[in-house]
C-alpha cells in the first residue's frame, strides 16, 4: 500500500489560485476601460443552489441566530445575528468562525472569500478569522419587498488620498453570490451598479444572472439595491454578500479559560490581568468609557 502521493500531485501551489488565472478578471475589475465587475457563471452547481435555497428561507432564526442590534456587536467569536421585518425581508449576518447553520453555504462562501481576496491582491484567508481589524461575514439576504434596500453609495472612498485604508482603498472588492433569478423569484430593479466608465447596469436586467452565478465587483463604484417586489410563492431576491466587518472589542474577544489553559501561563496571566483591569475600571465607573476608547482605537 502506498503511503505517499506522487510528488507534486497536491502542493501548496497547486491548491492555490494561480496569479496568472486572475489577470482577465483583474483587468475587468480595475482597468479604467473595464466593467468594474466580473461574473463567474455557474459558480455553484444546481444541487448546491437548490440546497442553499432550501435552508435559509426555512430556518427559524430565533433558534440559530441572535437578533441584530448594532454592528458594534460584531466582535471576535460573536454569535451569528439576523434581522427580519414584517414584509418578509431577512438578513443573516454569519461569521466564518462560528459553527455554521449550513456547511454548504459556509464552504461555498469560503471559496468566494478566497477568490475575492486573491483577486484583490490579498492572501487567500485574510479577514476570514478575527485576527485583524476586519473580519468578513457571509451575509445571506432575502429581499422580498423594498423600495430602497440600500441606497446608492460607494465604499472605501470616503477620503480619496487618505493613507487610512478604511477610508481609501482602491483594491477593495465585494462579491454577490446570486441565489435567485429576476422574473422567476422577484420583480423590479434589484442590484444596480455603476461601471468604471460611469454607465449604470442592473444585474438581472442588463446582465443576465442565474442562481449560482457569482459577481465580484469593485467596492468603490456606486451601487445600490432598490425596488424589489414579490408575489406569493416567490422566493425574493436572495443572495449572499461578503462585507469585511470591523471587529469591535467585546466580552468574547478575550480567550476563554479553556483556551488559556491550552495557551500556557502567559495566556492565563493575560486573562487574569484583564479581569483585574475590568474590575478596577468598573469600580471607578470608567469601564464603558474605556470600552468606547478601545472601540475607537480599533476603528482608526
Amino acid at each position, binding site marked *: 500500500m502506498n503511503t505517499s502521493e506522487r510528488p507534486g500531485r497536491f502542493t501548496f501551489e497547486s491548491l492555490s489560485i494561480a*496569479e*496568472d488565472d*486572475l*489577470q482577465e478578471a*483583474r*483587468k475587468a475589475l*480595475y*482597468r*479604467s*476601460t*473595464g466593467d468594474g465587475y466580473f461574473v463567474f457563471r455557474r459558480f455553484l452547481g444546481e444541487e448546491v443552489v437548490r440546497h442553499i435555497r432550501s435552508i435559509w428561507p426555512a430556518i427559524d432564526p430565533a433558534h440559530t441566530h441572535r437578533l441584530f442590534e448594532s454592528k458594534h456587536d460584531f466582535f471576535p467569536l460573536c454569535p451569528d445575528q439576523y434581522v427580519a421585518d414584517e414584509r418578509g425581508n431577512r438578513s443573516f449576518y454569519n461569521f466564518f468562525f462560528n459553527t455554521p447553520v449550513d456547511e454548504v453555504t459556509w464552504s461555498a462562501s469560503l471559496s468566494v472569500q478566497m477568490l475575492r*481576496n*486573491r*483577486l*484583490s*491582491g*490579498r*492572501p*487567500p484567508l*485574510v479577514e476570514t478569522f478575527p485576527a*485583524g481589524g476586519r473580519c468578513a461575514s457571509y451575509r445571506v439576504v432575502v429581499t422580498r419587498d423594498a423600495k430602497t434596500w440600500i441606497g446608492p453609495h460607494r465604499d472605501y472612498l470616503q477620503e480619496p*488620498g487618505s*493613507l487610512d*485604508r478604511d477610508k*481609501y*482603498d*482602491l*483594491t477593495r472588492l465585494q462579491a454577490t453570490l446570486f441565489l435567485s433569478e429576476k422574473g422567476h423569484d422577484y420583480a423590479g430593479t434589484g442590484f444596480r451598479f455603476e461601471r468604471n466608465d460611469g454607465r449604470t447596469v442592473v444585474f438581472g436586467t442588463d446582465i443576465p444572472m442565474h442562481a449560482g452565478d457569482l459577481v465580484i465587483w469593485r467596492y468603490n463604484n456606486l451601487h445600490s439595491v432598490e425596488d424589489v417586489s414579490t408575489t406569493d410563492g416567490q422566493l425574493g431576491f436572495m443572495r449572499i454578500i461578503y462585507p469585511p466587518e470591523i471587529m469591535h472589542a467585546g466580552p468574547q474577544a478575550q480567550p476563554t479559560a479553556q483556551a488559556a489553559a491550552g495557551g500556557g501561563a502567559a495566556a492565563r496571566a493575560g486573562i487574569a490581568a484583564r479581569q483585574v483591569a475590568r474590575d478596577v475600571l468598573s469600580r471607578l465607573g470608567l469601564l464603558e468609557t474605556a470600552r468606547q476608547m478601545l472601540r475607537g482605537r480599533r476603528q482608526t
Partner: protein
Amino acid sequence: MIGQTAIIDAAVDHNLVPNEYFAHFERFGAWQLDALKQIGLQPHHSLLDIGCGAMRLGLHAVPYLSNGLYCGMDAFAKYVELGNELAHVANLPPRYRLLVGDDFSFERFGVQFDFAIAQSVFTHLPAGDVRRCVAATRKVMKPGSAFIFSYLVGTPGTVGFLYAGAKPMQRSTIESESFFADLAREFGLEFQKPDIIHPTQQVGLFRYP
C-alpha cells in the same frame, strides 16, 4: 507626469492590483525627490534607488537629474517591467538603468553614487538583509555621499507576509534606532536623523566619509 488612471491601468496590465503603492504613487514619488533635494541632491548627481519599484521616484528623478544618472534595483520583477513601461510612456530621457535583483549587487551598475535612497525597503526586510544592504552600499557610494532611508521600529504582529498576496516577504523587526547606529559604526558611516518628516515612517541617513 503620468496620471493615476494611466498608472493603475498599466499596473493592471501587469496583473498588479491598485494597492496603496499605486494609490499614492505620485505623492510618495514626489516626497522621495523632495527628501533627496533636502539632503543635497543636485541635477548632476548619480542616484541609487534601492527598491525602486515601478519607477515611482524615477519618474520624478530622471527629469530632475539633467546631467546625472538614476539607477534603480528591485527584487520584484513585475515592478521593474512596469517601471520600464512607465518610463517609456513618460518619454524619459535615457539617463536611467533598472535591474532586477534581491542580492544587493549594486556594483552591477558599474557606477559610484553620490546619493542613495531606500523608501519603504527596510520596512520589508529582516535585520540581516538590512545589514547586507548597507554593507553592499559601502562598495558603491562615493566619499562624501549620503544614503537616506525610511524605517519602522518594533516587531509587527505579522512578520512574514505575502506581498500582493503572492510573494513571500518579511517585515522589519528592528527593535531600536540603535540598530542603525551600530551599523554605522560597523561600516564606518555616520548615522543621522535628518529633519525630514515622512507621512508614515521614520527617516534615517547614513553619510559616507
